[in-house]
Structures are given as structure tokens and as C-alpha cells.
């Protein structure tokens, strides 16, 4: 039996060995703890809100809208579905080994705050922890786990609406595609028939035709009037030719001079004849001069008459009027021809549009029916989505708080590491001491000496 004194003595005696054992133990234990994989734990929380119990079924704690109670939440954390989704979130393949490994790293604890009248928990906070080798992975895993739990819960709560919504959306897609096809066909027909109104059909074209016909009749009347005017004005140049010549003659200054000279001389001759007898010597001279002047005047007049009447403004005006009248008539003729072409085309278009209008009307009717069905399905889809939202919100599960940090495992705390190293070093040193003492057969204690000699030790000098 070793006493405290013996122990102290043995420690002092083997202090060098113990120092080596302490250092070796410290190094060994530190290396050992460093070989242990790092472990960080992050915690997130999920809140399940309280729900109203169903009055018609007070015995049943479970609601048809809330299929999972708060007490079931911890089990959700380790369901294969949640684990598989979590594995995918973490970039892992959801193999059985991976799922089992993830399950071991998850801990879920429910903190119930309220209870239903039936005694079952109605609301609670699920504290989920996720352990990982790194702080970032622990954080990511804890948050992904909380999110997947809520997603899984909502999926289950709204699963019956999901199929309905999917079916309605499929129907809507089909209806939408049908409407698009009808619109394309209507647009193609309308494009091919510009006058065709998808709503009014060929009525606009008919009205246009009537307008064209009216305008044509008006143009035809105008043409008749203009042709009559043209005929009238066509005679005006011939009728104004004499006046034009007269105007030319009258407006010629040479002729005027000749005529004035002739008139004065003729008046002089007449006055002389009245005053004098034929024997007046100057009478013959003046008569000869008058005859010459008259001949010259007539010659000038003949010369002027040989000129074109176009030199006279009168004649030019007549020609201009005739030209204008002819132009108006020609324009009316051309306009009438244009109207004739348009009326012909419009008439043909009306005939063609009648077939297209029939087709458009049929398509429009079909589109109206499809639109109505689309509206009905859309309304049902909206109701289903609303029901799903309601189902997801009643007794809903939400992420209450995301993990913001990850705590290292206890064995990674510096204080714990230090304590572990110290304890292990001391333990190794103690074990070394005990082993050495057990194996050592030297006279270190009186017990050994007395055992060898069978005689008591009476004194120890040291």
C-alpha cells in the first residue's frame, strides 16, 4: 500500500521520466484530439403555428387541413424525403449510406408552447441541430434542414391540391394553345382580306362599295356636264375667229395709221369735192392718194387676215376654255374609269369576303367558346391555388430562425482541449509511474525491503 509520502517520493525519484511521460502524453493526447474530425453544430428553429380545432370533429385532434401535428415535427426531420432533399441541398448523392450518415448528424427537439383542448400540442417550436465537419457546412445544413422540413410539411398539407392545380394548369395550357391557334387562323384570314372585319365581316366592304358606286354616279354626272361644256367650248374658237381677226386688225397700229390716214384724206377729198369742181387741180391728186391709201389699207387688212387668230387674246381665251373643258371631261372619264375598276374590285372582294367572313365568324364563335372555357378553368385554378394557400397557412410551419453561427463541439473548445491534454498527460504519467513502480524490483520502498528480508525497517536515513 503506497502512502502519499511514497507516491511523492516515487514522483520525485522518477521526475525525469515523468517529465518525459508528461510531455509525451501531452503531445500524444494533443495529436489524438487533433486526429478526431472537427465537428460544428448549428441550430435553426421551425415554428408550427397553432390552429383552430374543427368544431364538427372535436374528438379528432387532427384536422383535415392540418394533417401533421406539432408532436410529429421531430419525426419529419429524419424522414427519407427530408433527408434526400437535404442531401441534394448539400450536394450529396442521396444514397442509403449518405442518408444514414445525415440522420446521425441531425437532432430535433420539440418545445411545446400550447395545447389543444384534446390535450395534444397545437403549437410548438422545433429546434433542429445539424452537425458537420466545418462551420459553413453546419450552417448550410441547419438552414437547409429547417427549410426542407417546412417544405415537406407544406407539400403534405397541400398535396391534394397540387394534383388538381397541375391538372387545371394543363387544361389551361391546352386552352391557351387552342386560342392561340384560332387567333392565328383569324389573323391569317384578316391579313388575306384587309376589308374583312373580324367582327363586322364584309359589311364595311359593302359600305365602301356603295360609297364607290355613289361617287361613280356623281363622277358620271360630272362627266356628262363636262362633256357638254366641252362641246360648247369646242365651238368657241371657230366662233371667235372673225372677232379674233377683227381684233387683230383693230389692234394693229399700222392698219390704224393707214385707216386714219385714209379717213382723213378721204374726208379731205369729200370736202374738196364739195367745195370744188372736178376741175379742181388738186382734186385728182387727192383722189389718187386716197385710192392708194385705200389700197394700202386693204392690203394691210388682207395681210392681217392672213395671220393666225391665235394672235388674238379672244381666240386664245376661247381655246383655253375649250382646253379646260376638254381636260375636265377627260379627267372625269379617267376618274370614272378608276371608279369602275374600284367598284369592280370591291364587288369581287365582297364576293370573296363573304366566304372568309363566314369562316371568321365560325372561328370567332369557337374562340368565344374557348375563351369562356378558359375563364372557367382559370377561375377554378385560382380557387384551387387559394385553397392550397389556405391549407398551407392554417397551422402552417415556418422557419422561425435561421442558424447564424455554428458552435464547435465540446471537445474542440480550447479549454476542454487543454484540460484533456493535461488530464491525459497526467494519466499517462501516472500510469507510467505505476508501471515503473510495479516492474521495478529495487529498494525504493520499505515494503520491498521488508519483503526481501522478512525483517522490519527500523530507520530510514535520507
Amino acid at each position, binding site marked *: 500500500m503506497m502512502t502519499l509520502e511514497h507516491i511523492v517520493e516515487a514522483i520525485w525519484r522518477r521526475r525525469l521520466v515523468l517529465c518525459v511521460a508528461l510531455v509525451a502524453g501531452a503531445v500524444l493526447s494533443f495529436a489524438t484530439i487533433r486526429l478526431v474530425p472537427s465537428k460544428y453544430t448549428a441550430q435553426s428553429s421551425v415554428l408550427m403555428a397553432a390552429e383552430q380545432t374543427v368544431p364538427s370533429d372535436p374528438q379528432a385532434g387532427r384536422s383535415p387541413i392540418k394533417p401533421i401535428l406539432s408532436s410529429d415535427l421531430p419525426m419529419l426531420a429524419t424522414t427519407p424525403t427530408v433527408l434526400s432533399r437535404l442531401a441534394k441541398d448539400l450536394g450529396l448523392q442521396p444514397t442509403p449510406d449518405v442518408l444514414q450518415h445525415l440522420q446521425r448528424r441531425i437532432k430535433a427537439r420539440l418545445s411545446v408552447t400550447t395545447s389543444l383542448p384534446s390535450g395534444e400540442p397545437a403549437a410548438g417550436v422545433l429546434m433542429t441541430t445539424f452537425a458537420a465537419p466545418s462551420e459553413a457546412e453546419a450552417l448550410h445544413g441547419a438552414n437547409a434542414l429547417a427549410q426542407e422540413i417546412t417544405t415537406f410539411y407544406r407539400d403534405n398539407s397541400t398535396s391534394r391540391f397540387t394534383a388538381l392545380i397541375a391538372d387545371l394548369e394543363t387544361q389551361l395550357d391546352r386552352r391557351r394553345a387552342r386560342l392561340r391557334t384560332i387567333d392565328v387562323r383569324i389573323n391569317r384570314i384578316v391579313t388575306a382580306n384587309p376589308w374583312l372585319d373580324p367582327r363586322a365581316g364584309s359589311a364595311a366592304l359593302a359600305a365602301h362599295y356603295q360609297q364607290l358606286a355613289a361617287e361613280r354616279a356623281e363622277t358620271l354626272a360630272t362627266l356628262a356636264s363636262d362633256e357638254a361644256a366641252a362641246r360648247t367650248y369646242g365651238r368657241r374658237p371657230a366662233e371667235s375667229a372673225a372677232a379674233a381677226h377683227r381684233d387683230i386688225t383693230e389692234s394693229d397700229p399700222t392698219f390704224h395709221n393707214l385707216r386714219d390716214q385714209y379717213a382723213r384724206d378721204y374726208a379731205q377729198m369729200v370736202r374738196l369735192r364739195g367745195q370744188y369742181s372736178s376741175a379742181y387741180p388738186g382734186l385728182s391728186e387727192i383722189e389718187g392718194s386716197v385710192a392708194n391709201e385705200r389700197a394700202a389699207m386693204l392690203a394691210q387688212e388682207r395681210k392681217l387676215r392672213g395671220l393666225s387668230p391665235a394672235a388674238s387674246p379672244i381666240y386664245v381665251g376661247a381655246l383655253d376654255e375649250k382646253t379646260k373643258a376638254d381636260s375636265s371631261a377627260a379627267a372625269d372619264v379617267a376618274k370614272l374609269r378608276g371608279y369602275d375598276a374600284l367598284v369592280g374590285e370591291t364587288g369581287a372582294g365582297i364576293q370573296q369576303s363573304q366566304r372568309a367572313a363566314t369562316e371568321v365568324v365560325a372561328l370567332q364563335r369557337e374562340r368565344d367558346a374557348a375563351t369562356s372555357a378558359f375563364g372557367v378553368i382559370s377561375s377554378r385554378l385560382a380557387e384551387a391555388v387559394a385553397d392550397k394557400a389556405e391549407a398551407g397557412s392554417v397551422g402552417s410551419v415556418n422557419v422561425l430562425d435561421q442558424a447564424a453561427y455554428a458552435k464547435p463541439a465540446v471537445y474542440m473548445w480550447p479549454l476542454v482541449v487543454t484540460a484533456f491534454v493535461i488530464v491525459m498527460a497526467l494519466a499517462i504519467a501516472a500510469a507510467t509511474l505505476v508501471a515503473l513502480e510495479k516492474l521495478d524490483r529495487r*529498494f*525504493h520502498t*520499505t515494503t520491498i525491503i521488508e519483503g*526481501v*528480508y522478512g525483517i522490519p*525497517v*527500523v530507520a530510514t*536515513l535520507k
Partner: protein
Amino acid sequence: MTRRTIEDELNVLRAKLQSQLPPRAILAVTSATAGDNVREVAFGLGRSVAAGGRATAIIRLPPDGAGSPRERGLRFEVPSLPLIEFISVDAGPHLQVLSVRSGTALQELSVPAMRQRFAEELRARFEFVVIDAGEPQNNSAGLAALRLADGVLIAAALGRAVVPADRDLVDILAGVKAQVAGIVTSDSRKLRRYADELEALRDDAPAVPALRFEGVVDRSIGERASVSPPMTA
């Protein structure tokens, strides 16, 4: 708690021995191997007893083969006349260290009558005698000392390994019917001071003839003893 010194331990040991041994006792200190601090224990114990005012002698026995011409000191070799002659060194008040002079025939102590006479002579002169018996396996004088002593103290150095000589010593002590008083363990380093003092005594202190003991040639006739002048206490 105040740790007891070696002197305290020796005083306690002295008290224990004095309670066990008769007055004017002869105590032999022996050991199984060399290095068990037999001389240091004997010297320390003798000095402790002497410090108590009792006339004490410490007898140092040479091992077998000692006393050859190579040893220093005088040599009186008279084969026909067994002689045990000691020289004394004054080691302090009431303390004499007796060394066997070279050439002394310690083998005569193997004779019971001689041994008894020798013991009586010692008791007549000293109140307490401590004999450094050394290792009796190779020391006939030491073996004789074990026989004549009133008590035997075994010295064992702490830290040394157990050797077969320990068992042999047990057998020897049983064979000579020695009265074993106990074991004294010691730390040689702590007792170095005593070893140094002993060395100083042997090398520097003047040795004077202290005890001359002559035995008889014919062991059956008897013995005669020549006693040196009385020792000063």
C-alpha cells in the same frame, strides 16, 4: 510538517536499539552488497550514541585479504602468536574509531572463546560498540562480528536492485543465529557527508594504538590479553 533530519532519524534509531539491546551492547552493522552504506550507518549511529555522552567505539573490520604489505601502516606478522591490534582515531567526544592494524589475525575471532573474550573486553571499555561488519559473504571477521554482536543491523541502500546476495545474507544471519534488530535504509547521497568524515579520519587524523588483544595459540588452553593504556573517554 517539518521533515526529520538524518540526525533525528539516527537518534530515533538509537533510542529503539537501546530499548532492545542490553546495556553495553555490541551492535554489528552488515549488508548484502557493497555500497549499502554500512560504514556510514555505523559511523552515524556511533556518533549519535556518543553525542548522548556514552563511550562509544566504532570498529572497522577489513575484508579478507586486506593487511597485505601493500597496505600502509606497520605490519606485525607473528604467525605463532595470534594478535588482534587496533589503532584508534579520536572522532569526537566519547567516540573512538578503531581500525584493525594490518597483520592482525582476525580469524581467531571465529573461535567462540576468543570471540567471547573479545566481546567482554569491548564491553569493559565501551558503553556502546558498533562494528562495521561489511559483507559477511566474503569477510570471515565480519561473520565473527555477527556472532559476537548482541544485535545486528542490516544496512540497505535505497534504490539498488534486489540481488541474490540479499537472500544469502538472510541465510547467513539465520545460520549464525544473529539477533537482527532491523533494517536501516539509507540514501547514499545524503550520507555522503558521513563518508567524507570517515575518509578524513582515515587519511588525516593521527592514529594511536588503542587496543591490543592477544589470543592463545592453543585454543584449548586459553588466551591472554594485553590491554593498552585506558582510553580516554
